[in-house]
């Protein structure tokens, strides 16, 4: 029986990982009570997580999976194409959803009106489906569609924060305008490469663009549009205006989910387009990455972290810190080496765990004290020792102290910088981490050294919140000490992007071969 199930999931895994949450979403709406809606939501996330884990093990040796939707053979039909790179991203997204959901059930009691809970779950599932879809699909236009599914539901989810703070509405509106702008740029770019090549299948695009002259202006313009469009979704440094507001005013679980998955998925798409679709040997592509994206990534590492130091709202502090961390991920990408990409993928994973844990822990304090400001945190170490300890571990990982997963990814990134003979960049990585020390210390100081409010009783966060937080904290420390598995998966992911395994023929066809 179990064997039959695993063969079925091995055959249809990439599809089921998306179809299950997609089907669960209307089911959650139809559920009469919110407990049932929660159970449906969580079960679908757990299922997707299992499927993602299976995909990671299958693709770990460099296998590329190809699934033909509707039985139409690619490149005409829509193809789901999974290599080590997308499998890792899918794993991150589904893992975060699985861990977050039990916490979400408790936290939205305060943040969302009760009659909207089932719709909240449905919306979350659509966002989850969209992010998974972006990661799994091998069709450029399908990427756009899934990107819009996730973005549109994200706007709604951010706006749900309005029950607590009306500013969530304007934050959601900012995000809507800029996100739509990004999606439009992206789809214009797609239109242009479609014009040149006549195909929308990512692997086929890669093969055909290899034959196109490097001086082709349409391809260059398309590249510009795609990088800018995805840059808006990633919150690449000067295009980040939507991010602090959205993360600050969204319900806490949504901030945690977005910070740990949404921008990561967009970075994966950028990597896919840069390395698999466009030819990295083209001078215009190298130049854009090394002379535009790399300086901007460095700028983000310093300025965003610097701005974070002065924030009074802890959620906003974490949001700015996220902007800085996105800088590290882009930095790894622009080094254009296997080690650089390994660093990017390791940091995707590391930052998902770290920022997820931090947002959740701060959310637990908001749950007990009612606000995200620094003075709400004052003296909480004595009132909520476990939650405060989680913030400390998360903070250490954000800085990159040995023994946490944050150290592993920064170590790989510094290695990559040395490999590329760019020691000033390695120095910049260390220097910007020192700024992280400052804002993390501010949190620790407020939590541990300031007196608590008079007469506040000791009240730890409820277990449904504490367990998800500590699952992430344990994962941070565990992967900090035992990082071989993570780094080797990330290395396979990076190498498969560089060596063109995704584009080459010879993918293992799963499901029924297309006609």
């Amino acid at each position: 029986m179990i064997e039959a199930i695993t063969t079925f999931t091995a055959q249809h895994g990439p599809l089921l990982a998306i179809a299950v949450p997609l089907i669960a979403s209307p089911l959650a709406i139809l559920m009469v009570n919110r407990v049932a809606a929660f159970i449906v939501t969580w079960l679908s996330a757990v299922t997707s997580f299992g499927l993602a884990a299976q995909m990671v093990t299958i693709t770990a040796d460099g296998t590329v999976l190809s699934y033909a939707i509707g039985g139409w053979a690619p490149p005409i039909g829509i193809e789901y194409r999974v290599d080590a790179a997308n499998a890792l991203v899918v794993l991150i997204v589904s893992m975060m959803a699985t861990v977050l959901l039990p916490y979400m059930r408790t936290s939205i009691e305060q943040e969302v009106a009760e009659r909207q809970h089932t719709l909240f779950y449905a919306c979350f599932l659509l966002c989850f489906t969209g992010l998974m879809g972006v990661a799994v699909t091998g069709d450029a236009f399908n990427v756009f569609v899934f990107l819009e599914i996730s973005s549109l539901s994200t706007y709604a989810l951010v706006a749900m924060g309005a029950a607590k703070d009306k500013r969530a509405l304007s934050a959601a509106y900012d995000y809507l305008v800029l996100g739509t702008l990004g999606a439009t740029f992206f789809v214009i770019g797609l239109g242009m490469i479609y014009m040149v090549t006549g195909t929308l299948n990512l692997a086929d695009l890669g093969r055909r663009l290899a034959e196109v002259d490097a001086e082709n202006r349409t391809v260059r313009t398309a590249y510009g549009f795609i990088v800018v469009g995805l840059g808006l979704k990633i919150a690449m440094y000067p295009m980040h205006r939507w991010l602090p507001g959205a993360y600050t005013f969204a319900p806490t679980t949504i901030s945690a989910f977005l910070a740990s998955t949404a921008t990561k998925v967009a970075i994966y798409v950028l990597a896919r387009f840069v390395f698999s679709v466009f030819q990295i040997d083209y001078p215009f592509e190298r130049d854009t990455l090394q002379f535009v994206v790399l300086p901007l990534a460095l700028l983000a590492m310093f300025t965003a972290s610097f701005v974070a130091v002065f924030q009074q709202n802890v959620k906003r502090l974490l949001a700015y810190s996220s902007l800085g961390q996105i800088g590290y991920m882009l930095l790894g990408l622009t080094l254009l080496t296997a080690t650089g990409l390994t660093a990017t993928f390791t940091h995707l994973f590391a930052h998902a765990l770290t920022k997820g844990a931090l947002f959740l822990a701060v959310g637990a304090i908001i749950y007990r004290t009612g606000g995200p400001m620094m003075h709400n945190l004052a003296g909480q170490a004595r009132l909520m020792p476990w939650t405060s300890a989680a913030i400390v571990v998360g903070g250490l990982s954000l800085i990159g102290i040995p023994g946490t997963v944050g150290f592993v990814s920064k170590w790989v990134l510094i290695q990559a910088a040395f490999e590329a003979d760019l020691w000033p960049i390695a120095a910049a990585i260390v220097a910007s981490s020192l700024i992280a020390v400052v804002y993390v210390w501010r949190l620790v100081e407020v939590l541990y050294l300031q007196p608590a409010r008079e007469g506040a009783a000791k009240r730890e966060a409820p277990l449904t919140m504490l367990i998800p937080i500590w699952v992430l904290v344990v994962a941070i420390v565990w992967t900090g000490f035992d990082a071989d598995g993570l780094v080797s998966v990330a290395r396979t992911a990076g190498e498969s992007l560089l060596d063109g395994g995704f584009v080459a023929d010879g993918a293992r066809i799963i499901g029924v071969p297309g006609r």
Partner: protein
Amino acid sequence: MDHHLILRVVTRLLVAPILLFGLYVQFHGDFGPGGGFQAGVIFAVALILYGIVFGLSRLRSIFPDRWVMRLLAFGLLLYAGVGVVSLIQGGNYLDYNVLLPSAKAGQHYGIIVIELGVGITVFGVMMAIYYGFAGRPPSIEDTDW
């Protein structure tokens, strides 16, 4: 709107043909212009026109709010369900060929059911948007102008 006699008479005349046209666009969509998106909008237009002319409360009595979310979810479920059926029949997701014994009939009825799902969901979404805006209490009363 008691004094708009012409509007009321014309609306009464038009609602049924609009609904019929919506159904035509829906089910003719697989071999002519049309399909679920357009049909869903046209179908919703008939009800929204009725609501604008005869008032929201009368529209709510023939199409209650709780139906909106149910239809919206049901349409998507119908769409996704076709995919699940083709998985059970041993094909890939949304492979219409395996739905019925003959591949040709499978393709034919597969797309009809898919489009019906799209139509129902689009209809639900249009009604949700209309109820969402029209159902809000006006921030400025008419007498305050």
